[in-house]
């Protein structure tokens, strides 16, 4: 697909680190070299496919995970949830899938791509590990004076939404319906980051994005909460994939995300169950 490459955290650093570890072990163990029996110098790659909105938190969580499991290198592959589901359906080698919505995870489940043993234990539809709330984002200075969801219905306010096809678009639809409002956006962006960019550049007066995006954008946008956002809480399910070559390690990653990862998630603005 064109021009929007999945952001892959360079595996090179991890491999390099792994090599360094292996070299150190080799230096230390020259005396015993030859038997090579019980040494855990073998490096395992764990491929995690995750929704683009998890980029920052998963990168941070992966670092902590690798510290705790030095034999594992976490390879992160970020893209739109739908795109990732498509890649998984096409047989892309991956161990874990974290989706930005339950609908996309359902597609993966229906295709039989979740690890059966893991799913039986943790949930057939994956495990919800985070929630994200919608927020109105406006450029600094709020040129159109937006203060509520209702203000977006004004013709003088240009608005960018996510397209219906992507999770944040679905959430936008639910929130508007809950508020009983009809808004005519000027554009339906392909993902939530694209909405944020349009707001940051001041090309639109307002956009609906996630709270986490507002936090990560810092001073570049201003976030405005609205009560109907609670109706459109976006749930992030995670699951071990049937394709996984080491389902135990994949399950360990999931446990780590839901356990030690939770404070990192909350700090970034996610809700955790």
């Amino acid at each position, binding site marked *: 697909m064109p021009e929007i490459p999945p952001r892959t955290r360079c595996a090179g650093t991890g491999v390099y680190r792994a090599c360094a570890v292996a070299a150190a072990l080799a230096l230390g163990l020259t005396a015993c070299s030859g038997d090579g029996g019980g040494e855990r110098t073998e490096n395992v790659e764990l491929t995690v496919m995750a929704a683009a909105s998890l980029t920052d938190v998963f990168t941070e969580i992966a670092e902590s995970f690798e510290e705790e499991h030095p034999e594992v290198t976490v390879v992160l592959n970020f893209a739109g949830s*739908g795109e990732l589901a498509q890649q998984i359906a096409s047989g892309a080698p991956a161990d874990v899938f974290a989706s930005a919505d339950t609908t996309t995870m359902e597609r993966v489940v229906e295709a039989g791509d979740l690890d059966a043993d893991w799913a039986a234990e943790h949930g057939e539809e994956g495990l919800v590990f985070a929630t994200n709330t919608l927020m109105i984002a406006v450029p600094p200075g709020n040129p159109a004076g937006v203060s509520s969801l209702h203000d977006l219905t004004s013709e003088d306010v240009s608005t*960018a939404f996510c*397209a219906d096809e992507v999770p944040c678009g679905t959430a936008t639809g639910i929130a508007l319906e809950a508020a009983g409002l009809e808004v005519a956006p*000027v*554009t*339906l*962006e392909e993902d939530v980051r694209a909405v944020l960019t349009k707001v940051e550049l*001041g*090309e639109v007066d307002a956009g609906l994005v996630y709270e986490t995006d507002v936090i990560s954008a810092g001073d570049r946008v201003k976030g405005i909460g609205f009560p109907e956002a609670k109706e459109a809480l976006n749930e992030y399910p995670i699951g071990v994939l049937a394709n996984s070559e080491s389902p135990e390690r994949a399950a360990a990653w999931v446990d780590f995300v839901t356990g030690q990862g939770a404070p990192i998630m909350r700090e970034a603005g996610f809700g955790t169950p």
Partner: protein
Amino acid sequence: MTAPTPRVGRGPSGNGTARVPWVLVLPALIGLLFLLLPLVGLLVRAPWATMGRRIVDPDVLTALWLSLSTSTAATLVSLVLGVPLAWSLARTEFPGRRLVRALVTVPLVIPPVVGGVALLLVLGRNGIVGQYLYSWFGLTLPFTPAAVVVAQVFVAMPFLVIGVEGALRGADRRYEEAAATLGAGRVTVFTRVTLPMILPGIGAGAVLCWARALGEFGATITFAGNFPGTTQTMPLAVYMAMQRDPEAAIVLSLVLLLVSLAVLATLRERWMSV
């Protein structure tokens, strides 16, 4: 050593087909296969049962119409601006011409998404130029069909310029010089001698330009946004469909492919018969 004499007229057709050098044919076949296999993939995976119903979907027709009209408009704009630009590069001497020539190809090199961001920074509502368009005339370019055309011109015009410049360099300048010695001004020479001479080159450049504009995705979605009927061209519709319904994306791709092939084939026929 005696060089092998070409045995013209000994093959059945008399053009030497019997001595096809495999060192050329083998890579040619592999190349052709490589280009055609993805198309086969689309055809194999297409949902033929529901094809008829999907094609006449008003949304598909809207996107198709928008694609055809914007890419045609972009080609016309590129012709008006690009042919004179190519002429300047090929027929005049000015300091920094090589640099200008290199700069013309910049849109070919940078990823279209980056081109889209650059266009936003210049022509957006807060852009270097766009802010004046907005404050003086109340014009905002992004999120309009005009923005789609702008994005397509940016990405596709270099193809035309390079094609036409090549044609100009290949054209025999003596005709132009003869016209000039007979008293024709530079503009007359250009319109009455140069243009007719390089018409096939312009045509080829325009077709490339049109095809590139038709397939434009990155700069369009970044600069013009994505809204059905206004800025959602076929490539954008394909991308959006891919998120939820891959089969619909295949249908859209095939429609775009068939329509563009039909247009190109028609054009080519017209051309060859001239």
